[in-house]
């Protein structure tokens, strides 16, 4: 078999430029697939992380009749004594933070502008809300006893030309089905790098939110973050209580999980397209080689080379092109993906609204996995080798007597 390998190597070296560009097609295809799969995975993973950290948490407790999208403020739909419940849940070792949240809809009025927004009452001291403290770009963070302060998202502040210390009017729905209007002071401006969320969400201390919405000692939900996502089922089981519903992140993020499945299916077809183009290049290269070396195939046949050995010769050439191409592809693709996994791609506001259950940040960070590297490499290798099968079969079909009379 060594002589087949030797001849294959030298055959590829005959036309170095053509072999180089054929291997380059495999390399570009491999690098592209690696990059795309890591980017798609990063996008989905980033979106899920954001949605969990900003909106759903790993677990959420609310009453049976509460619907997040309605932001009901009726006491019957809300959780009573939420701080006590949160403290009990925080005693569970796997729980990183549990904190009540009160969701209400309202309108912000500043100068001559009015914009519909979501108001969330939070416990500023809870670790569950540290993301907003860490995301503070200007001004101060909220204090639990602040009766007049709110946190405004950076895109909203920029669009209204607002700065810390400015006063705004908030018109907020109450549990009685009426509205109340009060004046607040912008304490700080935050960003979560999620423009759709930041431009439509205002935070105020939970106690103030309860007062203004007439829901004292009530909250819309208990928002729970865990140390490890894998503990979700165990903690969910542990915090079940009559009259309450505990939802986990999978149940609350069905859309993201569905989109991830859809994107995986799309990636499959994208992979097929890229590898299809690559395999066409390889097939063309090898068919050209068969055409150019027809007489040589006749000579080898006359010397006693069997059809399967001729086939092996061309398949070995395809394999060498595939190995070379995939290795170069990995040498290009892996560092590129690792670099962008650190720095990310900045896309800015993708226009996903704040109320959406699908959070997308302003940057995408590719998330490469060893599994992707292996599966992309194997797919590129197999498709490239398979693309050599047809030319190899054509070469093997040549009758030595006909091939010897060829002009090539």
């Amino acid at each position, binding site marked *: 078999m060594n002589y087949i390998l*030797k001849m294959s190597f030298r055959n590829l070296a*005959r036309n170095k430029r053509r072999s180089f560009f054929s291997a380059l097609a495999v390399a570009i295809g491999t690098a592209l697939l690696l990059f795309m799969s890591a980017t798609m995975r990063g996008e989905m993973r980033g979106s899920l992380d954001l949605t969990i950290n900003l909106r759903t948490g790993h677990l959420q407790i609310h009453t049976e009749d509460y619907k997040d999208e309605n932001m009901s403020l009726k006491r019957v739909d809300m959780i009573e004594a939420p701080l006590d419940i949160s403290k009990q849940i925080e005693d569970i070792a796997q729980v990183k933070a549990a904190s009540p949240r009160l969701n209400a809809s309202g309108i912000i009025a500043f100068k001559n502008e009015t914009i519909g927004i979501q108001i969330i009452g939070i416990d500023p001291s809870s670790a569950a809300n540290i993301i907003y403290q860490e995301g503070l770009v200007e001004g101060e963070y909220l204090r639990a006893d602040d009766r007049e302060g709110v946190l405004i998202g950076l895109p909203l502040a920029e669009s209204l030309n607002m700065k810390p210390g400015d006063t705004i009017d908030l018109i907020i729905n109450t549990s009685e089905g009426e509205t109340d209007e009060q004046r607040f002071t912008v304490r700080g401006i935050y960003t979560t790098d999620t423009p759709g969320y930041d431009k439509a969400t205002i935070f105020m201390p939970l106690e103030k939110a309860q007062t203004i919405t007439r829901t004292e000692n009530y909250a819309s939900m208990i928002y729970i973050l865990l140390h490890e996502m894998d503990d979700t089922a165990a903690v969910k089981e542990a915090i079940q209580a009559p009259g309450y519903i505990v939802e986990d992140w999978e149940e609350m993020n069905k859309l993201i999980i569905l989109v991830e499945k859809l994107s995986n299916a799309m990636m499959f077809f994208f992979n097929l397209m890229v590898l299809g183009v690559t395999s066409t290049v390889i097939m063309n290269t090898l068919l050209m080689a068969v055409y150019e070396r027809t*007489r*040589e195939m006749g*000579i080898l046949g*006359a*010397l*006693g080379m069997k059809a399967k050995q001729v086939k092996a010769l061309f398949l070995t050439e395809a394999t060498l092109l595939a190995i070379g191409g995939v290795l170069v592809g990995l040498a290009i693709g892996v560092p590129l993906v690792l670099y962008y996994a650190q720095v990310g791609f900045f896309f800015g506001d993708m226009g996903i609204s704040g109320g959406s259950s699908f959070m997308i940040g302003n940057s995408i960070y590719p998330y490469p996995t060893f599994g992707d590297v292996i599966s992309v490499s194997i797919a590129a290798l197999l498709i490239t080798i398979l693309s050599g099968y047809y030319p190899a079969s054509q070469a093997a079909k040549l009758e030595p*007597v006909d091939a*010897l009379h060829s002009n090539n």
Partner: protein
Amino acid sequence: MEIAKLTDVTRVYTVGEVETHALRGVDLTIGKEEFTTLVGPSGSGKTTLLQLLGCLDMPTAGKVLINGQDATGMNRNERADLRKGTIGFIFQFYALVPTLTAYENVELPLLLIGKKNNHKARVMELLDAVGITDRAEHRPDQMSGGQQQRVAVARALASDPLLILADEPTANLDTENGEQVMEIMKKLNQETGTTFVFATHDPRVIKYAKRVVTLEDGKIIKDEAK
């Protein structure tokens, strides 16, 4: 002893609706240690006869026996097996594998018949026999036509075949190289007893032949020993 025997062999090529009778009922026996030349004008059937002797082609009718085995009806792989170690070829256009060195070209038939080791002595012996040991590591494009044809002769002999078939072996060589190649083959015929059959127009080849078979219009019209 018979190396090859053709009995009432006919070969008809069909292109579209046109039939060309390349051979018409040829009977021919090639014995051991022969140095035979097939002569005749272009289109007389020399090359077709050589291809049938070499099991590269199959007759339309008739029987081809090679070393006692009936090659008629064998498939491509069976004929390849029959050729290996039994028949060697020398072509008009040298027909060396361009990516292999002279040494590797001569070694190739040994690898194809599955001999894994101890090639070196045999290959060098053959290169020495054709006087080209100093070109062992050269590739075909680094050698003259005469040198390439000598390598082709060495390659044809590598697997120690019973029969060597040479199609116009001197057609692309100048007088000096043509004579040298024929001298080498004559010497090998005498020393090793290998049977040679040539198809040629070249008087330089014919003058070396011990037997001359003349073809015309696909038939043997004369078969004379010299």
